[in-house]
């Protein structure tokens, strides 16, 4: 599909991205980022970070989904995501315990969004149960729905759904795969002195 793009055209594209951003035409800016687990996709709107794609997710599909659900004005603009990339790098090095990034919650509604906002407040290195999250979101009986909300988290890592476990400490599920969830909890020292299965 891709046609060879010469240097002059590449420079023109880079300028275009800057001008699109300056004129408010860049509804979704995205960038690729590296992580110890593999490539990540970061996407933000003018309001904030809207989507983080984990290594096991198809980045092309994520972009098509963003085009359909947020806006088709989706452009790769790496410099706009420098801060998000910087904070994630520090986090993976164990040097950052709190993200300071504006978030755009528009991909989650209602109960799911309340669950995710509660998850965003779980401190680094601590864990909570799905039941606790359901309660925080205003419906202690909706444990399964709280689990679904975690599973549909559009902004994983920054909204730390990996810190939510089953009552009793079993890992539960994770969109990026259970080994990644376990590794993140180990990085944060959250599994110290507890069984990890």
């Amino acid at each position, binding site marked *: 599909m891709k*046609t060879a793009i010469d240097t002059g055209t590449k420079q023109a*594209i880079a300028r275009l991205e800057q001008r699109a951003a300056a004129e408010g035409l860049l509804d979704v800016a995205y960038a690729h980022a590296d992580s110890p687990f593999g490539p990540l996709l970061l996407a933000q709107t003018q309001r904030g970070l809207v989507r983080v794609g984990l290594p096991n997710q198809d980045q092309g599909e994520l972009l*098509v989904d963003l085009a359909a659900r947020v806006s088709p004005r989706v452009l790769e603009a790496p410099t706009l995501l420098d801060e998000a990339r910087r904070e994630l790098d520090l986090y993976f090095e164990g040097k950052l315990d709190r993200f300071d990034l504006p978030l755009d919650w528009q991909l989650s509604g209602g109960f799911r969004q309340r669950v995710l906002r509660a998850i965003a407040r779980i401190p680094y290195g601590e864990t909570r149960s799905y039941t606790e999250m359901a309660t925080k979101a205003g419906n202690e009986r909706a444990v399964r729905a709280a689990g679904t909300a975690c599973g549909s988290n559009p902004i994983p890592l920054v909204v730390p759904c990996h810190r939510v476990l089953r009552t009793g400490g079993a890992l539960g599920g994770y969109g990026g795969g259970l080994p990644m969830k376990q590794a993140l909890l180990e990085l944060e020292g959250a599994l110290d002195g507890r069984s990890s299965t």
Partner: protein
Amino acid sequence: MTASLPPFQTLLDTYSADVMAVLRGAVGRDGADDCFQETFLAALRAYPNLEDARNLRGWLLTIAHRKAIDHHRAKGRKPIPVAEVTEAVEADVVSEPDHDLWAAVGALPPKQRAAVALRYGSDLPHAEIAAALGCSPEAARRSLHEGIKRLRKELA
């Protein structure tokens, strides 16, 4: 809004080389860069409301064609001050091996110039040239034919 519009980045990845080729043919290498910006900014502005996503290439080339015409009009209106007035009119084109050819293409009337650029700069079939120019395939064929005839005469 159409549900199936691809992410705009896909259009850039897929068609920017074509758009640049057409613009370089139509306005020359120097002007092509600005026209490229104007083309894609206009496309980006209109994109969410685009109703028919079936011929994105033709749509982009139509916009590029209009921007090329704007460019020539703007140039016509803005004379550039020079130290010495020379009578020779030079088209705003690249100094490449086929300099003479593209200079001659640049001097064609807008429709013919666009038809030639779309056909030989971008390898578009007649139907797509017609879509890009907003005319019938027959008219596109005629513009192309007239353009080539004129080029043959110029360069003979």
